[in-house]
């Protein structure tokens, strides 16, 4: 069965650089969520999209932006990277009202 696909799996950036993380939800899922999990931390909700419109926003820095495209894939854009942005970034998708399925995550390391 198709799962949530995230790319890249690993990403290394320097401070002040920009990073783009991609998420391809399960086919026919209409909602995408982004979570950030710092080292030894629980996942924190960043932002979600339903039918390509932002549906909810959590503790997402102003340096980050995200969008969902017509094919339902989503991208998380992160600018002016800081050391504290080093984390595992999860994307999850769901069909409205059903359970979330998580991708394998993108491990971002900021040096």
């Amino acid at each position: 069965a198709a799962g949530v696909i995230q790319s890249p799996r690993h990403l290394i950036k320097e401070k002040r650089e920009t990073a783009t993380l991609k998420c391809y939800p399960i086919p026919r899922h209409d909602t995408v969520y982004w979570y950030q999990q710092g080292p030894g931390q629980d996942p924190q909700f960043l932002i979600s999209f339903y039918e390509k419109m932002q549906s909810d926003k959590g503790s997402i820095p102003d340096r980050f932006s995200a969008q969902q495209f017509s094919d339902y894939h989503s991208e998380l854009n992160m600018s002016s990277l800081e050391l504290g942005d080093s984390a595992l970034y999860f994307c999850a998708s769901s069909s409205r009202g059903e359970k979330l399925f998580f991708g394998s995550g993108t491990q971002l390391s900021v040096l």
Partner: protein
Amino acid sequence: AQTVTQSQPEMSVQEAETVTLSCTYDTSESDYYLFWYKQPPSRQMILVIRQEAYKQQNATENRFSVNFQKAAKSFSLKISDSQLGDAAMYFCAKEGGSEKLVFGKGTKLTVNP
């Protein structure tokens, strides 16, 4: 803000024994979902079990079952016949509006052979 509390940062269990992980939460809603996720060293988030708050019957998935006490806002996970592969971080989570999840801080489970 809604909160989910896991009071046990670490737990250990002998292989083939039973262990219970605790979780409490705060909410003013009457209908919501609760989840237990497993995160092994690979860091993949794996759904273990889901409970709908309006259902009184406790959810069960093979060796995993929950004790859901709605009035007490308690949602514990019982793992029976523990296996070495059960070793992982376990996160309790609640659907916190707009279907996003609010997670607890996690419980690290060690399974001893």
